[in-house]
């Protein structure tokens, strides 16, 4: 008999006619949800999470995963998820923990925004045969630029240009620490970033010594836990980022459970092995914008003003005013993470209910910075469930300079969104530190798949630009007139500064 009233969510169905009893599925399941008792059977103790690893390693295609057909009586308000949550809490008294991003049906504003295209009156451009400029510079821009001619006739800037990150396509990999993901997963992203001419981010877990060769393509984070933050690390990175908040868990800290703090993670973070890695909710040296300014300039001093300093915040109610303060505090890049953003682990209620969608946050911040005449002083990176090149194009049209992606990149590494990152059992070797699981993720294989994804998005983005009749991403940036809204209320349209379709 089960010792919980929470029903199983999934069932593995094994076709025993096809099964050759090779046990790859049994050995492959990070959750121990399959057992071999003369033949492969679902485990009595551990439950299937629908990560599909077994399905994919089965050479005979003998496994299917189905939803448990066990029904609750239908109730619009008391959905099965909610009943199960209350049941688990009644049984354990614990705070619910989730992985990945917000899974509640809040709706996605991207899906209510249409991009424009040229017809007759201005010609569209064929990106397959004409040049298309996607190169993006992230960092503070001067008020104006004076140019001069060099001795060989080349044009160069006379105005000093502050340090910039140079992206060949307007995408970066969002911060995911060594700890939240495996070293192999981080290495795959680092290799892909180097190959693509974009950037990856260390997250708040420091930079493992094996990844220093990829540091010139890394944004190194300085978060409240200050894990692995030291002078060599700060100097190694292409940019330094102060992590204030994360879209999946605004306003709260984090903790990597002691069982995940392996020797390598302990070394990289500079903490004793097996102890919890606690990230305080605030930086305790930052209680105000003035204090933020203090850390921004401390980091600029530490890097001798050679790299841009980014500040990452979660999109919350007053995001525009906060962003204005951050820019005035001296940040060169502001990274805004919307409330559908992912996480290795966050309390479920926080993940699902705190913060605001990235779409409105981009628009609100961009508008505010323009109105105040300081938009040139910083670049905007937007993140929080950018799912494809269309979301990317719409984010840029709303005012983002570039987008950061995490979930999409993890999907390229095999992730099936089973949302069990917090358990540390990831069968795909991504969000786990168990060596028997992490070693199945080959960084070179992963890097190629991630690079494929970004190449594909890049081509699609060029096609979108071509259809819009522009030949540079710069021409789409903040060009909200190229967007129209369907089924969005008037106030939201006003904040987005986007007309209704047909207007």
């Amino acid at each position, binding site marked *: 008999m089960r010792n919980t009233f*929470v029903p199983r*969510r999934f069932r593995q169905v094994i076709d025993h006619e096809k099964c050759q009893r090779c046990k790859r599925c049994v050995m492959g399941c990070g959750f121990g949800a399959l057992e071999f008792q003369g033949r492969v059977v679902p485990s009595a103790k551990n439950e299937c999470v629908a990560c599909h690893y077994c399905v994919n390693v089965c050479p005979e295609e003998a496994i299917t995963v189905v939803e448990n057909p066990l029904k609750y009586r239908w109730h619009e308000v008391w959905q099965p*998820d909610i009943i*199960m*949550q209350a*049941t*688990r*809490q009644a049984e*354990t008294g*614990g*705070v*619910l*923990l*989730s992985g990945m991003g917000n899974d509640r049906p809040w709706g996605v504003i991207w899906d209510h925004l249409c991009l424009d295209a040229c017809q007759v009156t201005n010609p569209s451009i064929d990106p397959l045969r004409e040049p298309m400029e996607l190169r993006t510079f992230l960092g503070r821009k001067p008020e104006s630029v004076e140019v001069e001619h060099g001795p060989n006739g080349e044009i160069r800037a006379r105005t000093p240009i502050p340090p910039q990150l140079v992206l060949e396509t307007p995408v970066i990999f969002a911060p995911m620490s060594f700890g939240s993901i495996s070293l192999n997963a981080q290495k795959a992203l680092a290799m892909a970033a180097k190959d693509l001419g974009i950037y990856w981010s260390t997250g708040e877990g420091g930079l493992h010594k094996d990844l220093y060769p990829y540091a010139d393509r890394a944004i190194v984070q*300085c978060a409240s*836990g*200050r894990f692995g*933050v*030291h*002078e*060599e690390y*700060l*100097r190694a990175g292409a940019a330094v980022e102060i992590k204030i908040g994360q879209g999946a868990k605004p306003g709260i800290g984090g*903790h990597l*459970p*002691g*069982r995940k703090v392996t020797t390598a993670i*302990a*070394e990289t*973070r*500079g*903490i*004793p092995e*097996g*102890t*919890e*890695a*606690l990230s*305080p909710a605030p930086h*305790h*040296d930052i209680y105000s914008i003035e204090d933020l300014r*203090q*850390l921004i*300039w*401390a980091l600029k*001093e*530490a*890097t*001798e003003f050679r790299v841009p300093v980014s500040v990452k915040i979660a999109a919350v109610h007053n995001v525009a005013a906060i962003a204005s303060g951050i820019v005035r505090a001296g940040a060169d890049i502001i990274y805004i993470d919307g409330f559908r953003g992912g996480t290795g682990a966050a*309390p*479920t209620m926080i993940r699902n209910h705190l913060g605001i969608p990235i779409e409105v946050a981009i628009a609100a911040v961009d508008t505010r910075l323009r109105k105040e005449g300081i938009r040139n002083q910083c670049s905007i990176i937007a993140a929080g469930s950018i799912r494809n090149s269309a979301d990317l194009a719409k984010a840029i049209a709303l005012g983002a300079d570039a987008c950061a992606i995490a979930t999409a990149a993890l999907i390229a590494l095999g992730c099936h969104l089973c*949302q*069990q990152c*917090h*358990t540390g059992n990831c069968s795909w070797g991504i969000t786990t530190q168990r060596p028997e699981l992490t070693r199945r993720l080959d960084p070179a294989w992963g890097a190629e798949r991630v690079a494929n994804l970004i190449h594909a998005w890049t081509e699609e983005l060029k096609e979108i630009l071509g259809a819009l009749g522009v030949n540079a991403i710069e021409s789409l940036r903040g060009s909200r007139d190229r967007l129209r809204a369907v089924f969005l209320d008037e106030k939201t349209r006003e904040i987005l500064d986007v007309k209704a379709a047909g207007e």
Partner: protein
Amino acid sequence: MTGIEQPSQLAAEDSEYLRIDAKGLHYRLLNERIREAIGDGRKYIEVVNVHGQRYIGDGIQAHVQIDIYGIPGNDLAIFMDGAEVVVHNNAQDAVGNTLNSGRVIVHGDAGDVIGYGMRGGKVFIRGDVGYRVGIHMKEEPRRKPVLIVGGTAADFLGEYLAGGVLIVLGLTDTARRGTVVGDYCGTGMHGGRIYLRGTVEEDHIAERFAEKYEATEEDLNAILPDLAEFCEVFGFDLDKVLAERFWVVKPSSRNPYGASYVPNP
């Protein structure tokens, strides 16, 4: 503090010595001058007329000594890696912030958040310190930060402590008026040790996370070299310091939050 020390009168022609007058100098220029001096091979740099300049010694990776006369601003020796900084006066907030290695000596009082996230090295404060001192200090097998306060500390001492040693000695007049530490000492601590000398009220220790007991001989032996060094730097009598009772605050668990969470079904 009283009796402000005067700068040394070393010969100006000593190639390893440089005096920098910080009067009216912006911190950015001051730090540039210091980095330049280190680049020129100076081993001993005196900075005089310091008046609140921030980030002195920020990220310095060199075995040099920097003596500061006047009051330095916040984030003194932040990210510092190997140098020695001596302040012949009071210091402000966030001294030794995320210090990697080296030693910071303050001959007066210091403010809040001293030694935040220290990874290694030593911070010695002669007088009293403010709130949230020594929070989230860390530790590795071959690197262990040490923070010693001669006077008293306010609330949240050693919050989130993950490693290292924090010592509060209560040698100042402030200590004689009450206890050596404020409320919530050791809250969220899950590693390291806090040593408190003198009177400590039971309810000042965050009992959910930490337990307090009287230091054993073994406990004291573990910190004796650091205590001796501290006493030598400031001219305290080690025997007198050791004559008073010491308390040790140690974490109850290395994983204080593990049991609080359950997976979302």
